[in-house]
């Protein structure tokens, strides 16, 4: 029973903080609301028995990516409401377009209640032992390729960040 209430609470908070990310005027407030959204999503992971993933999520997103965002905002001195306003028509069309997308996506979920799980429920799949076995047995090549991707991203970020490229 408490799981149900926690799910409702975390869902409500996730949607509310997600909306605040988009709607708040100050970019620093947006970053902080995004951190809160990530914490609620980590709570969802814990409820879904993905404990290791929740820990990694908090470390990577709230710890690394959001610090990078805050750092760039402070560096560019964007921590004030400098954003020029879009015209009311562009705002209205953005709202209508995303609302239509929501309606289409929710409509496409109509048959989802008939999905049946073919496997017996196993509460241990989120533990690090199972995840490591899957990662290094079935996904060894993607794992190595993602290391090359990270190296390329690092080189690209350093190249772009240099003052003058010769």
């Amino acid at each position, binding site marked *: 029973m408490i799981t149900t209430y926690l799910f409702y609470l975390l869902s409500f908070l996730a*949607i509310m903080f*997600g909306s605040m990310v988009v709607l708040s005027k100050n970019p620093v407030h947006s970053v902080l609301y995004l951190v809160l959204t990530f914490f609620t*999503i980590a709570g969802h992971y814990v409820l879904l028995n993905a404990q290791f*993933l929740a820990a990694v999520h908090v470390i990577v997103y709230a710890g690394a990516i959001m610090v990078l*965002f805050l750092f760039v905002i402070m560096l560019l001195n964007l921590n004030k409401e400098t954003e020029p306003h879009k015209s009311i028509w562009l705002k209205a069309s953005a709202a209508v377009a995303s609302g239509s997308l929501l309606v289409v996506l929710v409509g496409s979920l109509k048959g989802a209640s008939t999905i049946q799980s073919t496997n017996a429920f*196993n509460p241990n799949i989120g533990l690090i032992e199972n995840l490591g076995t899957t990662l290094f047995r079935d996904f060894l090549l993607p794992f190595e390729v993602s290391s090359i991707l990270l190296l390329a991203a690092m080189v*690209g970020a350093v190249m772009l960040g240099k003052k003058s490229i010769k």
Partner: protein
Amino acid sequence: MNSAIQVIPLEWYLLLSTVLFTIGVLGVLFRRNAIIIFMSIELMLNAVNLLLVAFSSFLSDSKGQVFVFFIMAVAAAEVAVGLAILMMVYRNTKSSDINTLNKLKW
């Protein structure tokens, strides 16, 4: 305590992920600040992550959670390169408004 997927129907997770994804799309369309657009993209990636974890838990298959790791790696790479590009844009135009970047616009 039970796992949430045993007491919550899968549709609720589908709905929650859909709503979060739509909020991300709204952010991309609604705002002009490039940093907020990046944050909206992160929100969309996280909606997909949540859906993958819900399905992984529902089907008792750990492959979905391994995919989330790969998405996190891609998101980290994307943020590093994207913010470097943003710094570069800011250095050249002195603003983070995406409407100043209209050289490729038809």
